[in-house]
């Protein structure tokens, strides 16, 4: 069987879960991928079967799709737990092949390894961040067009100030220097992307944004790194501006 399996119930359950509980950016992106796959399946093959989420691991392994190693010294994930659901979604929907998940003892150091290079999550705060997304698909004759997810206004959510405090080791002088360095570097990187939308710049920008806790920006850059779309530059600039405002407020606090 393999990719012919059809996951109506699984994707519906996931979508329902996300309606009633906060979910991560990656989880919603995976839902999008699942819907894309579902759309493709509907147009190419009849529905084969569906299965319950709780049977997911055995189903995936029996299909030879992958092997899941979930070693956790932290706690046993519970079925139906959105966090566990996220882990299962990652392995299945992002790969359609072999994958391994390894849970570090510190769940904030969750590290996903996949053949397709799914970016690792930047989880330095709560595992499920409160982001709301709206996703829509447009079906065309030559494929499915995937619009860039529309993010809500980030406001104070543009930067995780607690994460920034941890990175800077509660050193106000270092925090000030880091913020100033990032804002200058970020602007240069955006200018560089305007000239050439290069993945190495997106990659470096992503790393720098993670240093200051600008996680929504990190996720946007991760998406772009996977599928670069120069038309998304204005959205990156808008998000960077939200980050700048947040960090400049923080700078004012540090210098007052």
């Amino acid at each position, binding site marked *: 069987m393999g990719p012919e399996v059809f996951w109506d119930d699984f994707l519906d359950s996931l979508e329902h879960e996300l309606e009633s509980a906060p979910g991560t950016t990656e989880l919603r992106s995976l839902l999008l991928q699942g819907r894309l796959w579902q759309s493709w399946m509907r147009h190419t093959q009849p529905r084969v079967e569906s299965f319950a989420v709780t049977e997911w691991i055995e189903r995936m392994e029996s299909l030879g799709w992958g092997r899941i190693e979930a070693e956790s010294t932290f706690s046993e994930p519970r079925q139906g737990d959105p966090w566990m659901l996220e882990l299962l979604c990652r392995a299945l929907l992002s790969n359609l092949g072999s994958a391994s998940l390894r849970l570090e003892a510190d769940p904030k150091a969750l590290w996903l390894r996949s053949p397709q*290079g799914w970016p690792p999550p930047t989880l330095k705060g709560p595992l499920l961040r409160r982001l709301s997304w709206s996703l829509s698909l447009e079906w065309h004759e030559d494929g499915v067009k995937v619009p860039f997810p529309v993010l809500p206004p980030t406001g104070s959510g543009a930067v995780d100030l607690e994460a920034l405090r941890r990175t800077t080791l509660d050193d106000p002088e270092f925090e000030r220097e*880091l913020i100033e360095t990032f804002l200058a570097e970020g602007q240069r990187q955006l200018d560089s992307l305007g000239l050439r939308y290069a993945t190495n710049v997106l990659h470096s920008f992503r790393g720098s944004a993670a240093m200051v806790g600008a996680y929504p920006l990190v996720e946007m850059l991760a998406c772009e790194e996977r599928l670069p779309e120069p038309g998304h530059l204005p959205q990156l600039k808008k998000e960077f501006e939200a980050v700048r405002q947040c960090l400049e407020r923080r700078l004012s606090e540090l210098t007052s």
Partner: protein
Amino acid sequence: MERPLLVYVVEDSPTQALGVKRALKSLEPLEVKLFSDGLEAHRAIQAIPPDLILMDLLLPSLHRLALCRLLKFHVDYQSIPILIFSSITEADILEQCQAAGANEFLPKPYAPEHLIQRIRKLRPELRLVEAQYGA
């Protein structure tokens, strides 16, 4: 008077380099030099070999693991411990780094204390300066 260990940090992002530099302030005795370019670092290593190298994978001028391979396959520099940090997420990135001769790999983003732990594993003679990292 003990000689400070010479550490070369090869990172092209000023923000990320600053993070590494700040983390290293909690270790002694240490002297840190920053490089933003792989070739520039290679020339410096040939001139004055360091005691430890911390490097990003994606660097200007040199392809990914090229710098690591250049050093590890040269008799004069192969004993220098190399720690690679990167947010590259290929499934076998760890294996790639190990095959190139790297001594440690630290995925980004990392907590400063994790970087310190890995560095002290490579150079146990380094001491903690600040209590926040623990002993």
